[in-house]
């Protein structure tokens, strides 16, 4: 239970960073933190006490009951790649924004009214 709550606080730190930070790079960093927290939370849901990784090895028979839950791990493998896609896209946008506005401060990037 405490592990879930710690992971949830990591998520809240990420959300805090996105809402209050002024600097584009900080916003990209906090979106990264949010991604880590969510991936970790899903894998935490899939862990079984005293289990081993879900890979059969040639000559050491392992009973399937002793293995950890493979489904959350498959989901998180996909969402890690999505995280990288988001970061690459945000970095590309931030670079072009810096080229146009010569600043990383989101409050100064205000050409759109309202």
């Amino acid at each position: 239970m405490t592990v879930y709550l710690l992971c949830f606080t990591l998520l809240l730190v990420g959300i805090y960073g996105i809402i209050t930070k002024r600097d584009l790079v900080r916003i990209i960093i906090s979106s990264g933190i949010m991604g880590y927290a969510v991936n970790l939370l899903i894998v935490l849901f899939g862990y079984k006490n005293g289990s081993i990784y879900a890979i059969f090895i040639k000559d050491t028979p392992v009973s399937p009951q002793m293995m950890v839950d493979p489904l959350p791990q498959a989901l998180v493998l996909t969402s890690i790649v999505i995280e990288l896609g988001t970061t690459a896209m945000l970095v590309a946008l931030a670079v072009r924004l810096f080229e146009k506005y010569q600043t990383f401060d989101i409050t100064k990037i205000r050409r759109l009214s309202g």
Partner: protein
Amino acid sequence: MPVESWLIFLLSFMIVGSIIALEMKDLLSAVISIGVVGLGVSVAFLLLQAPDLAVVQFLFEIFSIVIMVRAFIKKDYHREEPSRVNKILAGVTLITLIAVFFLSVPLFKLLPAFGEPLMTTSRYYLENGAAETGSANIISAVILDYRAYDTLGETTVLFTAILGTLTIIRIKKRSKVAEEEKP
């Protein structure tokens, strides 16, 4: 229960690391502390018996650090501009997030405790995954056979992200030098 205590230590280390990453004035050290937090996640995956994930997280972490350093540190801009952070907004968000935290504590009790997952569908994967798909690595079996459609979507996400980044950075596919940017 060594795993849970190790995880609690690692998670609190990561929370401190990410707070430092947000509050640090210098940009380069902020990016580096985020790298450390990412590697902490990779170690946590190892503790949670997920070697597949630890490798992929570790490598993708290196990649996002390379992209960020490549894009941001090259500029002659290391210190964050001293913009006036809106104190009220920061205070209000902090209070609401703490309230959300305490509201969700009883809700986390509803879920099965840490270490006792229900595993109704994934018991099928473990029992006859190797037999039906012929792959020893059950996670590869789940990704590439049982839920191969997810991975098709996943490849398309990566394809779209790369195509989108190229569109935004306006590198023409055929020409050698980037075309002159229209003002």
